[in-house]
């Protein structure tokens, strides 16, 4: 093996985390100037490999930009050199400057292993990036990047999930799982690789999807090619050059599906085993709500999957699935917000249900994981344990970030960022800086908790935390829901644990005016829920809050009358919140709705509410809503299919073919009818005809729209509901059956996915329907 090839591998892999670890690298560099020489010697080869595609277009511009800005702040090369020498001569930072983060043990080992190459990178950057900031780069970078994980153990997501991704990568690249010790013979490698074409990572933002992929690729020595032009090239808003940008994407994929033949990799490409494997990473997706864009995106993915050679490389798609986080649900009403496409919309049905694609779902991170990750960041960011915020603070951030690590780190940075500096000042110039000392005293309270006995998070710190981290967090949501559901009133038994202050305040309120005699049944004791202060603490919007209330409140009632009264109020509140434009836009409408739903439920719930460990559950609405979207997209697909088919048929008719079959006639106007008719009449009808005539009428994608063989619902509902919407369980069950019965779920030959050949599968399914009594309803 040529030494140069080895070095290229290393250099590019370490440069991929260039931006994340520049400061480390620099600190190594400045602390060990002697190494510089050795790294200088390997400088040339690195330069040679620069022209190879950057492993990550994300990190490379960032590093180059940091360099540009810093060089602008001190343009003179002479001073720069001088600075550099100064720094070499004088390693300890001058007073008043923030101390550098220490190199934690694992980092140090990492540096030792890759130390050589890293320094190469540093010198490489030297041209512009010689740091002019008094402390090294860690002031210029966000903590999220600065302290990104650098080893697999530091990754925040669950081990199993990481292992899954790792296995997939390994399999897709080498044809066998990373857990297998003895690789199969090279002939068989492609057997698996052929079906490992696309890895689809989805999950809420900030759960470490991209980080995991990048890091794993780095450890596996895989080169990442990212479609990085997304911002400029992909017309997210639907501009004019959409076509061309999509074709650019298509050509990007086809280009990079094969190893490049550029100069740089020439000498290595002869040894196919040494050839650096590569993957395509897709983080920014085109505007998928635009149908033509989506279709061409899907078709290019499909082509990518189908054209496999032993040299082609796999693709990883990272998609922030906004729908699955707790937070996103608040704005479910905004359909056009983007980013809430599921795997179906992103990949297309053919690819998703095909054999080439694997989906791995990242879940919001558990608070313990977050806690661990935050502590790691803190250790790196704030060297002195004394300066760090207390354990309780970190835990609070972890709890309130709702599984989003990135925002948790951001909150942490905001919370702790300036602390050490102020403290430093205080220590150094206690008397001169009176104002500051007072302030830091106040500020320091929370952090001092970390020193001795773990103090509670001090009150003002908590207030800051509150403001910083008070996102739409589940913690507050359940708190708010509980306040409503438990319907506490003055004079309840077990009042001991209540806040005395609050009780006092409520006792001091003027007594209620008595109700007239005929309304006596509605008189209640004073509620402990003070509506005015309560309303702003509701963490979600009015409609979502109503959904949550609606889902769980019957559990807290004793009598059915109470449920009925409560539902009445919720119903009224719902009408007050209709989608009417004028009304909706007014904030007053929202406050009416909130007032009504909260007050109404408080009025209708029994007092005191029986405690029998009722559970608050997530509204089913979101699930149904998602299903409805899936179905409607399937319907769209059918409509498109029918239209296309209709055009083909009418052309054939013009050529003298003639309309001989009902199917063709249906096809002609299939795409033009509205969705409701399509769902309620066309599709069921065609399913039936299809079964009778053994002629395929519907595309494969219509499968989910078909009836379930039997479900208890079906007898009591009419056709529209049955065929299209609101049938979560039945549909899923059906899909499972379909996958199991005819082996669709496993691995059919790609060629079989044409419409003609699915005919057989559908027929079998149709047989089932014909037995079903429901079918009679359609006659």
């Amino acid at each position, binding site marked *: 093996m040529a030494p140069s090839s080895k070095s290229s591998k290393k250099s590019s892999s370490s440069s991929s985390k260039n931006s994340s670890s520049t400061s480390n690298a620099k600190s190594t560099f400045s602390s060990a100037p002697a190494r510089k020489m050795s790294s200088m010697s390997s400088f040339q080869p690195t330069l040679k490999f620069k022209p190879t595609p950057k492993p990550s277009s994300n990190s490379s511009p960032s590093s180059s930009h940091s360099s540009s800005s810093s060089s602008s702040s001190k343009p003179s090369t002479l001073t720069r050199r001088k600075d550099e020498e100064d720094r070499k001569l004088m390693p300890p930072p001058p007073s008043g400057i923030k101390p550098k983060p220490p190199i934690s043990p694992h980092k140090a080992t990492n540096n030792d292993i890759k130390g050589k190459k890293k320094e190469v990178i540093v010198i490489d950057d030297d041209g512009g990036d010689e740091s002019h900031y008094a402390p090294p780069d860690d002031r210029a970078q966000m903590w999220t990047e600065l302290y990104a994980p650098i080893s697999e153990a530091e990754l925040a997501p669950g081990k199993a999930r990481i292992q899954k991704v790792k296995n997939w990568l390994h399999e897709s690249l080498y044809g066998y799982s990373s857990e297998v010790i003895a690789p199969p013979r090279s002939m068989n490698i492609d057997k698996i690789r052929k079906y490992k074409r696309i890895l689809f990572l989805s999950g809420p933002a900030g759960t470490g999807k991209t980080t995991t992929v990048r890091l794993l690729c780095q450890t596996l020595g895989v080169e990442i090619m990212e479609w990085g032009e997304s911002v400029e090239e992909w017309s997210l808003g639907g501009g004019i050059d959409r076509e061309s940008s999509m074709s650019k994407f298509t050509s990007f994929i086809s280009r990079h599906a094969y190893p490049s033949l550029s100069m740089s990799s020439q000498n290595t490409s002869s040894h196919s085993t040494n050839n650096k494997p590569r993957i395509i990473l897709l983080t920014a997706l085109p505007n998928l709500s635009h149908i033509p864009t989506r279709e061409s995106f899907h078709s290019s993915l499909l082509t990518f999957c189908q054209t496999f050679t032993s040299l082609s490389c796999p693709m990883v798609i990272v998609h922030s699935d906004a729908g699955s*986080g707790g937070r996103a649900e608040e704005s479910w009403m905004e359909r056009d917000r983007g980013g809430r496409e599921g795997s179906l919309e992103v990949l297309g049905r053919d690819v998703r249900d095909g054999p080439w694609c694997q989906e791995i779902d990242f879940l919001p991170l558990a608070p313990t994981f977050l806690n661990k990750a935050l502590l790691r960041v803190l250790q790196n960011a704030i060297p002195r344990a004394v300066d760090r915020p207390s354990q309780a603070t970190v835990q609070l951030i972890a709890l309130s970030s709702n599984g989003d690590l990135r925002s948790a780190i951001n909150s942490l940075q905001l919370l702790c960022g300036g602390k050490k500096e102020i403290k430093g000042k205080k220590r150094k110039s206690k008397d001169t800086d009176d104002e500051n000392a007072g302030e830091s005293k106040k500020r320091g309270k929370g952090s001092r908790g970390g020193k001795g006995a773990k103090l509670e998070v001090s009150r003002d710190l908590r207030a800051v935390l509150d403001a910083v981290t008070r996102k739409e967090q589940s913690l507050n949501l359940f708190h708010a829901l509980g306040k409503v559901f438990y319907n506490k009133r003055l004079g309840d038994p077990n009042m001991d644990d209540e806040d005395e202050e609050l009780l006092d305040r409520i006792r001091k309120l003027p007594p209620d005016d008595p109700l007239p005699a005929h*309304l006596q049944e509605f008189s209640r004791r004073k509620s402990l829920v003070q509506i005015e202060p309560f309303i702003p603490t509701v963490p979600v919007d009015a409609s979502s809050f109503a959904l949550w209330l609606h889902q769980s409140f019957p559990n807290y009632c004793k009598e059915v009358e109470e449920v009925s009264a409560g539902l009445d109020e919720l119903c009224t509140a719902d009408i007050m919140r209709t989608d009417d434009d004028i009304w909706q836009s007014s904030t007053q409408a929202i406050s009416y709705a909130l007032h009504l739903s909260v007050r109404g439920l408080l009025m209708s719930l029994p007092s005191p509410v029986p405690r029998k460990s009722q559970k608050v559950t997530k509204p089913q609405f979101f699930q149904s809503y998602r299903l409805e979207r899936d179905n409607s997209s399937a319907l769209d697909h059918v409509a498109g299919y029918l239209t296309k088919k209709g055009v083909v048929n009418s052309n054939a008719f013009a050529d003298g073919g003639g309309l001989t079959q009902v199917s063709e006639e249906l096809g002609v106007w299939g795409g033009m009818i509205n969705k409701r008719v399509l769902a309620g009449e066309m599709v069921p009808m065609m399913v039936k005809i299809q079964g009778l005539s053994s002629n395929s009428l519907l595309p494969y994608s219509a499968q989910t729209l078909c009836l379930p063989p039997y479900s208890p619902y079906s007898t009591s509902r009419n056709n529209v509901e049955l065929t299209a919407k609101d049938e979560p369980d039945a549909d899923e069950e059906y899909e499972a059956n379909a996958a199991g019965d005819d082996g669709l779920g496993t691995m059919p030959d790609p060629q079989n996915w044409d419409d003609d050949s699915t005919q057989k599968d559908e027929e079998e399914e149709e047989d089932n329907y014909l037995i079903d009594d429901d079918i009679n309803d359609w006659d």
Partner: protein
Amino acid sequence: MASSSKGKETVSAIAKHTDAEGYEMPWVEKYRPVLLDDIVGNSETVERLKVIAEDGNVPHIIISGMPGIGKTTSIHCLAHALLGDAYKEGVLELNASDERGIDVVRNKIKSFAQRKVTLPNGRHKIIILDEADSMTAGAQQALRRTMEIYSNTTRFALACNMSNKIIEPIQSRCAILRYSKLRDAEVLKRLKEICEMEDVKYNDQGLAALIFTAEGDMRQAINNLQSTYSGFGFVSQDNVFKICDQPHPIILKQLIKDCQNGLIDQALSRINDLWDKGYSAVDIVTSIFRVTKSMDDLQEYMKLEFIKEIGWTHMRILEGVGTLVQLGAMVARLCKLSLPPQALKI
């Protein structure tokens, strides 16, 4: 929060604002704080911003909250504190009135992010996106990437009313600060300061009325103060309600009381009076809602039913039927609630 010791600084800061030609500036602009110290309310958060401004490494931030509570002001002050003299070159501000479609994100924001600016050590350029919740989803998606790529040189500061109108990937990339409504005492303090500096004569009820009408919105409070002053020269309760064109809450309170007691004739005549004074139906119904909410001695049940009826009426009025008939009907229904059902039988 602005303590008396800060008063001098504020005045000096204001001197910058005052127009040499003697035109009167809106007081909102004239007394807009330029130092983080002068920001009213949310003191803990602002304190935090001050500390982090000294450090310089500010993450991307989103400040969310109701209008008039100092979001934009805080961001500007932060930018001033961070960049000092380089403020002009180092800050790009875009608000809802600027075009912020996808092209702007691609071109203007990106080119600003790429630009080289001489800044103090460790500081970043700042892109301020005011009213970010009005940006289209596509533009926000495009922003996502830009934020990531240029985070080494450029920080984003977003202000918005509803943080959930910001797409999740961007929320994730930012530290979110929520500003809460200003407390009445905080607004009052600032109003008094301004009164003092502008030599406005006032009485306490006048200021209380200003605070009532502003509902925690500092901007509105100051605007109303200025209009009351320039209109009447004296800030009293009556003057304020005249200027704000809102029905007097005391009258409304009596109206609700009448309804509660089933005195329909009195209640109707009160509504007629208000109507004759020229208040619009929306104004009346909005104020009635506000008053009803804050009436502590109203029975819970009555309050619920009242709010419901007022809500229905409000809905109809917004749909375009802003007539006296609707208001009268509302009053009648409110009264009916407390009348015994037997009395209504024919």
